């Protein structure tokens, strides 16, 4: 335990460090670690070795080539068990259910969504946690994938698209039940073709329900999805030209005769184009007609507004084929230079820096547009960014809470696979709501958005407690990860410093002083002490500029 004398000693030592020391350390961050930390959920020893052996281009191409269906991570997910626990209850109408407390496999992750439709049937009595279960399974799997998936870049981009096409899976039981297929769809397309992804997102039941398009019928149409499609999914707020709100024919055109930006009238027209795009969950469509029970997209012709439309200055003829209106809107948007700029800016902001070089973004956007029909369009754009000399700049982005937690586990090398989603609650204290972020913007992505005392203190808590038993994410004891040849406390500090930053620069003398010990003291033999010392070393190694920034 720390006494006053020891505390003073550590304070004196801290004061002796020159103010510039931290900056010098940050500037000296290992460039290969920075590269890996941008493209994975945190560099590991294995990543460092692979990168050293292959070189950046080959390492990147290997990552880009890894498919969504990876047998290694599938095997890990197969071993997971998520607890479901509720008391006996009844629905007040004669239906009742018994108490349940059991560990269940993640069966919904790969289930045909049609087989999950009984969870939406309110005639069948069950506790609400059964109905919300599919989304809970995705949330548990998210952390496991981030830590253990070999296809790290695909996972990084899947999380990116989850925020770009944000859905709050806790909105209601409908969004929750269809959320595993939403997640799988984004992972499939994460490095693929944007137009294909956009089409599948527009047809994703979770999205249709979250942004209310599933209820949009003529007339008036529901504008929620249409507005966010333009503002968040494609053109972006920079292309909202509402100063022309009543002069659509004065909005400047691009080189192909399409309006360069959108106004409210475009939102109204796009909303009309998507009327009737709903969900196959047996819902009422019209007298005697229900949607099918596919658990997938369903087109309700009776709800569609079939008449002529004008989108970004382009005239649509009336009474076209089913879904032609919506699909043409998606074609226009996916091919639009504004979409290319907006999406490429966000990709560069995610993987590289808050304010990416405009020239680099422009080159990405040109490629994005040229390759808009290529099956590997997104991979090509990511490759251009990552292999550009402009990618080699010092780290400036704070690891957001989910990334910080995943990076801690990747650095320590423990096996993650909890039986509860307590980690979700822990991260929520810092503003990270994995798969349950309410507004459609998704989590913000600049340092300024996360720069607060609360976030910093919650990251400190994660560094301190993530490996404790009660935290619930891992049962691996850190003592088991201490190499057998490790002799002194200073060795331990340097070992964790390497794991976290790729550099053995920190023997952590102030930590040992605070514990009333000396750096050259031998490591204790008992397991409990060794685990605790390793946990403290890890926290110290993680609370450095090299680990907090990427």
């Amino acid at each position: 335990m720390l006494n006053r004398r020891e505390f003073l000693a550590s304070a004196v030592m801290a004061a002796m460090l020159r103010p510039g020391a931290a900056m010098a350390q940050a500037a000296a961050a290992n460039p290969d670690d920075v590269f890996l930390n941008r493209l994975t959920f945190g560099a590991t020893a294995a990543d460092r070795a692979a990168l050293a052996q292959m070189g950046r281009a080959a390492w990147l191409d290997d990552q880009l080539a890894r498919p969504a269906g990876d047998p290694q991570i599938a095997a890990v997910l197969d071993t997971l068990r998520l607890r479901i626990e509720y008391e006996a209850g009844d629905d007040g109408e004669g239906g009742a259910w018994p108490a349940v407390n059991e560990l269940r496999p993640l069966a919904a992750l790969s289930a045909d969504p049609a087989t999950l439709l009984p969870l939406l049937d309110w005639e069948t009595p069950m506790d609400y946690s059964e109905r919300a279960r599919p989304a809970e399974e995705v949330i548990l799997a998210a952390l496991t994938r981030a830590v253990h998936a070999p296809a790290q870049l695909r996972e990084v981009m899947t999380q990116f698209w989850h925020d770009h096409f944000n859905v709050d899976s806790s909105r209601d039981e409908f969004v929750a039940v269809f959320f595993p297929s939403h997640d799988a769809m984004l992972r499939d397309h994460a490095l693929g073709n944007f137009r294909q992804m956009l089409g599948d997102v527009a047809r994703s039941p979770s999205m249709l329900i979250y942004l209310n398009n599933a209820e949009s019928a003529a007339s008036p149409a529901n504008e929620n999805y249409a507005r966010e499609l333009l503002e968040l999914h494609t053109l972006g707020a920079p292309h909202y030209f509402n100063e022309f709100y009543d002069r659509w024919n004065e909005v400047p055109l691009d080189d192909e005769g399409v309006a360069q930006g959108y106004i409210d009238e475009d939102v109204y027209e796009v909303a009309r184009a998507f009327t009737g795009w709903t969900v196959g969950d047996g819902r009422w469509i019209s007298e005697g007609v229900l949607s099918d029970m596919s658990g997938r997209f369903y087109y309700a012709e009776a709800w569609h507004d079939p008449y002529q439309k004008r989108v970004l200055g382009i005239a649509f003829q009336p009474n076209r084929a089913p879904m032609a209106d919506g699909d043409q809107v998606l074609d226009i948007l996916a091919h639009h230079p504004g979409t290319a700029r907006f999406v490429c800016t966000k990709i560069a902001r995610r993987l590289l820096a808050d304010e990416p070089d405009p020239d680099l973004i422009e080159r990405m956007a040109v490629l994005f547009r040229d390759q808009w029909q290529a099956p590997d369009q997104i991979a090509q754009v990511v490759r251009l960014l990552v292999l550009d000399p402009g990618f080699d700049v010092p780290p400036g982005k704070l690891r957001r809470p989910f990334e910080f937690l995943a990076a801690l586990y990747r650095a320590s090398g423990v096996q993650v696979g909890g039986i509860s989603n307590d980690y979700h609650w822990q991260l929520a204290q810092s503003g990270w709501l994995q798969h349950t972020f309410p507004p459609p913007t998704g989590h913000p992505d600049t340092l300024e958005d996360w720069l607060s005392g609360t976030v910093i203190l919650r990251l400190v808590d994660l560094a301190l407690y993530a490996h404790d038993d009660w935290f619930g994410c891992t049962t691996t004891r850190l003592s088991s990860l201490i190499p057998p040849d490790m002799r002194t406390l200073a060795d331990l500090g340097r070992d964790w410093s390497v794991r976290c930053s790729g550099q053995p620069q920190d023997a952590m003398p102030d930590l040992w002083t605070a514990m009333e010990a000396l750096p050259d003291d031998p490591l204790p033999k008992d397991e409990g002490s060794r685990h605790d010392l390793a946990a403290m070393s890890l926290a110290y190694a993680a609370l450095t500029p090299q680990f907090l920034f990427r």
Partner: protein
Amino acid sequence: MADPILVVIFLRGGADSLSVVSPTGDPSYIAARPESLRVSRQGDTPGLILPAALADVDFRLHPAAGELSELFNAGDLSILHATGLTLATRSHFEAETKIEQGVPGGNQGGWLGRWMNHVQPGGPLPALAVGTSMTESLRGSRAAVAPDLSGLALAAGHWLAPALEARLRAGFGAHDRLGATMQDVLALSQVLKDRYWQPDQGSMRDYAPDVEYPDDTDLAASLRTVAQSIKEDLGLRIATVDYGGWDTHVNQAGDFPGLLSGLSRSLMAFWRDLGPRQQDVAVVVQSEFGRRLRSNDSGGTDHGRAGVMLVLGPQARGGRLLGRWPGLENAALEEGADLAVTTDYRDVLTEVLTGHMRLDRPDLIFPGLTHVPVGLYG
């Protein structure tokens, strides 16, 4: 006289002003919406009568706003209808940003951030954004951000906390991006631990409010934290509180009453908890926009224009419905669709800053604004 305090509650998502304070007798209103999306004059739950009418359309508060009605009748609450951004936008994020920045062009922080930088209040906790992220309105200032005060104590109870603090100070105290935030959080952490840490209990002391707060809405917990910061003399001058969920594109009849009731009950609990400190406090309630006059075909309303602002505080001459009612006939609507904005929200905030916060230079907060009086004070 104690320093005045301002609390700004932002209803995120676009609260339907036509359901908060409704022109119940307006034939255009009755024609544009089904009964379930209107406030009625008859039936089981008629709207709550507002005695001081703004126009001859029988304005009423929504029946779920009973406490707001009480505060209005007590003369503590002012209601300002048809307020908002004069430049039209129906994008949540653009409207929120513009309102919170309060100045065209950006890069000048938020309006409360400019107030902080102008006044430079001292004390350990001059400004608090209740939540996990900085609000746009406080941007540019070194406001604290936290859902509750106990969360601002560094590794409370951990035996290594002093060493960790030294570690963070050494590692980040001079960091170009994190340094200022780190210094602020470490200083505030120490103040809070000195005040609230109970060594015998191994925990931070809980706040004991003088009233019971509702337990069914996050807003109540946020306002409880604000009341604590005020009553325990931490030097609070500005607090921002977010209350989300108002984007009622569907199922408005189901969701809206609960949201408004949450606001109404939480605000009343907060106000009663303040007790004599009410004298020092003004609360502003606003949203980024109102909603479309005509409802959609899925039981909701889409993004509209003018909202309604509430100002709670004894300095204002409350119990009045202020602003200019533009009417709802087709020609009076903005773009033929939405309640028109007739009062710039900055005119309301300007009067709160001068009338309550005793600011003499509102032009520094809203540069370029030619103030049109709304008559909130005096």
